[in-house]
């Protein structure tokens, strides 16, 4: 037990996390590609045409994974930022910084694919309803986090300010998630519900889950790539970084 705790703290140092991240990246890319190919195959060739929405519903296979990831990445980012704030660990703050652009990308994709789905089905690209507005706020929270970090020169102070912003913003996540229940909204209710059988064909569900896994693996892979750059940028005056690049 004690041994394993020491092991984990070892990876909290940038010096040992940098090579570890490098070794993990190819595996996450391979997983992302495998899930992505399977998910796309089901999305386009196995899942049947929807009775109400025709082929237009296929947007769900990217819209739902992007939306899930935009919320989940925010929680992970806030967790790392909070950990960095509490324990003053450098890698956690760097991880939070690295996740923000990927989270923003997922939020942007969620809004974009949502608009392209809303137009043919509701007749509007955008409506100011609870779910859409709270997702837009999430997108701005990511941008705000990135802008705040970029605006403060001292990286340790930037980490602290960013962490507080990230932690306060967590309140938005349950608002997005439950918005379809709490308010009358144009957005349809959740597709997957633990209390009743999924309101969609099995194959559609599988396609969506595989695509979600692909987006998940992608997010980890790209965040690890970025955190490696951030580690070198921020630790560039240390002795180990000078020897890490050959």
């Amino acid at each position, binding site marked *: 037990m004690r041994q394993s705790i020491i092991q984990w703290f070892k990876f909290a140092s940038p010096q040992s996390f940098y090579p570890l991240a490098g070794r993990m990246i190819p595996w996450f890319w391979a997983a992302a590609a495998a899930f992505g190919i399977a998910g796309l195959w089901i999305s*386009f*060739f*196995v899942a*049947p*045409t929807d009775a109400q929405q*025709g*082929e*237009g519903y*296929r*947007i769900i296979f*990217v*819209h739902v994974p*992007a939306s899930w990831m935009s919320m989940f990445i925010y929680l992970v980012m806030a967790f790392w930022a909070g950990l960095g704030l509490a324990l003053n660990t450098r890698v956690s703050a760097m991880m939070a910084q690295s996740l923000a*652009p*990927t989270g923003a*990308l997922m939020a*942007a*994709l969620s809004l*974009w*694919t949502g608009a*392209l*789905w809303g*137009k*043919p089905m509701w007749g509007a690209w955008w409506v100011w309803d609870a779910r859409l507005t709270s997702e837009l706020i999430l997108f701005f929270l990511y941008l705000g986090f990135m802008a705040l970090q970029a605006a403060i020169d001292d990286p340790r102070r930037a980490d602290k300010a960013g962490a507080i912003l990230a932690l306060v913003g967590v309140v938005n996540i349950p608002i997005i998630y439950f918005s379809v229940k709490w308010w009358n909204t144009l957005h349809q209710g959740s597709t997957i519900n633990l209390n009743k059988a999924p309101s969609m064909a099995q194959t559609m569900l599988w396609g969506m889950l595989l695509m979600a896994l692909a987006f998940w693996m*992608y997010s980890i*892979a*790209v965040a690890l*790539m*970025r955190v*490696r*750059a951030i580690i*070198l*940028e921020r630790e*560039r005056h240390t002795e180990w*970084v*000078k020897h890490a*690049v050959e």
Partner: protein
Amino acid sequence: MQWNSVGEFFAMGGYALYVWGSFGACALLMIAEPFLAKRRLSEVRRSLIRERLADELETQQRTQ
């Protein structure tokens, strides 16, 4: 499989703009982002290598 021809597949039952606009945007951004992350890493690596070469040159000159 519900497609009888390639054309039918790309037409997406009249929803081509919306379906391909969604999948296309995802593909575009999810190719661009790792590319940018990779470039950021190689940029900082290059500048670190330059820095070290400059250091080495300096110590060489000092010892001569």
